[in-house]
């Protein structure tokens, strides 16, 4: 991965901007932060690494005033502080972008950015706020329309809105929790360029990520956490990728999954889409006349810059959105417009994007969340009566097999770390069904390295068992590693379907960003 801009490379100034010492945070049944020391210097990008549930988000939430530590001290610019709320943190110039976006989708960019802002006043002067916003955005090379509705923005743009929210409040210590997990390589590169710009201006950035290559390319220093403790803090120039992975998991991470496959029988289509058009939320066609076939025992990846109709296409296939016209044939049956429940019964499993929004009910316990999709089936219920014992048993299996890090299956799903939510969703979907077709949107989002490898292994295993897999991903490395064929979407159309052997990051990149079709070789 190339570096967004040259690192300044200057040695850290002697007085740290933020000094966290001996931070302890305990949740019922877990020690999330165990005597953590963490410092942030002026003008540095500090990468924070660690497995799912290591305590990264908790540490940053403490610095942002969302949680109060059980013990430990925090100094900001040398002054000891007590942060009781994000408000206190913002006053001190600390800003955070969360793993899941916290924007109001129905509002415009400018409304979101200035919501609850001092300068909003009683009768806001939108003109001047808009021009301020445009100026700030252009400063970083962003092309954001202040009047656009946030709901219609791509993840990369939503990220920019979150950053602008912090910047207009004068934040100079930016905490970014897995900002790249939803970005395409191009968007990631742009974000890194922005980050380098910011640290050149004397700001400091904390970057949480699961991709070691990202940490190595953009950061000045790296801290690794494991099970609530800091196990390593070092300048980036002095660590290797091996050292980092050993620090994170305690052992070397196993090499890349072998994608070797069994014999390739005759091609048998499991999903056949013809002339499918789907309306988007804003009332324009999001999917235009798509034709696509998925065969048994193959992984077909849909690649594309987000916002080019992938989500709408997947929602139409999985019954969450009514198609405007066209046919969707699953295993010989036209399923266009069928309900998600019926599709699940017909053998279509689905891993949704934005797990916290679509995949779980945070207020319910883990085992109740496991029940979500299968509650109407035996042995989970009979004649409308729930059998909680058998659900709890399955939940325990999901939690063990997919290593969901939770104090018990009775814990609230909302208390899980980001990666563990994703594990729960994956585990539920794959443990409770025998799919013919698996539709997986960003299946490895937020997962640490080991879990990502595990999911890849599972996907390849299902493929070998003759399951058809339709996967949406923006991570080109992953796409190239897993797929048999790749369909590129641009402007709501499939602009080309290519075999993996004929694909490369360059070819895909150009198709994704310009929609230049390449003659399909099916």
């Amino acid at each position: 991965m190339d570096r967004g801009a040259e690192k300044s490379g200057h040695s850290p100034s002697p007085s740290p901007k933020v000094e966290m010492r001996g931070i302890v945070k305990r949740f019922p049944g877990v020690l999330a932060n165990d005597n953590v020391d963490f410092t942030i210097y002026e003008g540095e990008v500090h990468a924070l690494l660690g497995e799912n549930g290591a305590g990264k988000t908790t540490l940053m939430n403490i610095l942002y005033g969302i949680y109060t530590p059980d013990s430990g001290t925090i100094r900001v610019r040398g002054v000891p502080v007590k942060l009781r709320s994000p408000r206190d943190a913002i006053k001190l110039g600390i800003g955070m972008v969360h793993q899941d976006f916290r924007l109001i989708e129905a509002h415009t960019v400018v409304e979101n950015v200035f919501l609850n802002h001092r300068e909003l006043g009683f009768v806001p002067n939108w003109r001047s706020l808009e021009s301020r916003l445009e100026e700030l955005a252009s400063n970083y090379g962003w092309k954001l329309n202040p009047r656009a509705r946030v709901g219609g923005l791509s993840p990369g743009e939503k990220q920019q809105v979150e950053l602008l929210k912090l910047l207009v409040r004068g934040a100079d210590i930016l905490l970014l929790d897995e900002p790249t997990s939803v970005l395409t390589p191009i968007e990631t590169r742009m974000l890194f360029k922005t980050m380098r710009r910011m640290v050149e201006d004397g700001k400091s950035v904390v970057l949480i990520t699961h991709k070691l290559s990202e940490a190595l390319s953009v950061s000045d220093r790296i801290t690794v956490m494991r099970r609530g403790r800091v196990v390593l803090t070092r300048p980036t120039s002095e660590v290797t990728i091996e050292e980092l992975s050993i620090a994170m998991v305690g052992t070397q991470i196993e090499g890349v999954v072998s994608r070797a496959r069994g014999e390739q029988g005759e091609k048998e289509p499991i999903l056949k889409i013809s002339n499918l058009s789907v309306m988007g939320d804003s009332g324009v066609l999001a999917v235009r006349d798509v034709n696509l076939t998925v065969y048994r025992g193959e992984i077909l990846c849909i690649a594309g810059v987000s916002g080019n109709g992938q989500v709408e296409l997947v929602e139409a296939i999985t019954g969450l959105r009514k198609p405007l016209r066209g046919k969707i044939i699953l295993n010989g049956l036209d399923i266009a417009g069928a309900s998600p429940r019926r599709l699940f019964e017909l053998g279509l499993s689905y891993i949704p994007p934005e797990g916290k929004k679509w995949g779980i009910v945070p207020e319910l316990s883990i085992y109740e969340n496991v029940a979500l999709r299968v509650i109407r089936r035996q042995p989970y219920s009979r004649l409308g009566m729930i059998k909680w014992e058998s659900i709890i048993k399955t939940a325990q299996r999901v939690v063990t097999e997919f290593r969901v890090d939770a104090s018990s299956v009775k814990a609230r799903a909302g208390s899980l770390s980001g990666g563990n939510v994703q594990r729960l969703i994956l585990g539920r979907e794959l443990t409770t069904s025998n799919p013919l077709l698996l539709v997986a949107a960003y299946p490895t989002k937020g997962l640490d390295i080991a879990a990502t490898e595990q999911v890849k292994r599972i996907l390849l295993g299902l493929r070998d068992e003759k399951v058809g897999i339709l996967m949406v991903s923006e991570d080109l490395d992953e796409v190239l590693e897993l797929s048999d064929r790749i369909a590129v979407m641009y402007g709501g159309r499939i602009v080309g379907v290519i075999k993996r052997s004929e694909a490369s990051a360059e070819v895909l990149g150009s198709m994704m960003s310009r929609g230049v079709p390449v003659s399909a070789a099916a």
Partner: protein
Amino acid sequence: MQRRSTLNSLGLQVSFERRAEIGTRFSISVTLGMLILAFLVSGLIFQLLGFSAPQIYRSFFTTLTSAIMLEEVFRRSTPIILAAIGLCYSYRMGFWNIGAEGQLYLGMIAATGVVILQKAGIGLGEELLLPAVAAASMLAGGVWSLIPALLRIKFGANEIITTLMLNYTAILLADYLIHGPWKDPAGYGFAQTVAFPASSKFMIPGVSEAITYLMIVGVITALTYLVFRFTVFGFESRVLGLNIFASRYAGVPTASTLLRGVFISGALAGLAGLIVVSGLIGRMRPGASPGYGYHAIIASMLGGLYPPAVFMSSILFGMLLTGGDLLQAGIQMPKSGVEIIMALIFLATIVAEFVKRYRIRVLRLGRGVVA
């Protein structure tokens, strides 16, 4: 994440921050604390209005000290419990039904209709009168409540507004019938319908009226608890109320779940209406319900939509109504006095919910928060 409002003129600033976690014990203490506060504040108001607060508190307690009083408390709690337990079904699904009062009136109307038919000789016979009035009142309340549910499903109409409007419609319809076609010809000119015969009342031999009711509502409360704990329908309604996206993904049949839950709400309110006309007052009159359907809203919220707690809070409302009657007779406190307390309890419930979710801090301006 946080909101703020400024009281700059006082040099104070109040800020609200969302709490990350809400414990059960904390939640219960906040509700009880706010409830006590509501009683203290209402005492203060009465004192200022020239009544004796201790005397008022005492009379509420008297309702618990004699068997006769206690029976009255239970009788008056019954319609509130039924309607409030019914509302749990709506509210758990995120359907903000404030139409229990109207559904209750529909129950009264339907039951009265059946009795009038019976007296006119068109009916199923004396033995079947009770099942007939029960079925009619529940059906009427249920169907009445389906109107706003369908309007929401079909047109996205806000149920708070539609249910409220239908309350007025139902009450006006009842008034029209009482003053018009259903006026009892033998009623000496009073605006009221014919009396309900004994055979239309719930009665368990050897047990008093209050205890009979208590047993009925006890069973309904327990069943509701079990529905939410152990049935697919109860589980799916909770999911529907908590996360509409996840419920679509999970394949919860949104429309049919909503319709079923709202029908049950309306049916239980309708049954409450039957108990009012057949038992509590014996016939339909203008203003037959002193607002049981509204009391039920407060009771179900105060009980946190948890059936046993809703049962208890409804009994509290029964106490207030009974105590209010005593005060009216004893110290000429107007009927609206009790309504002040109820309104304060409602406010307290809302404040309690807020306190549970947000931490409230008052800061002095200029001092900052940096310790």
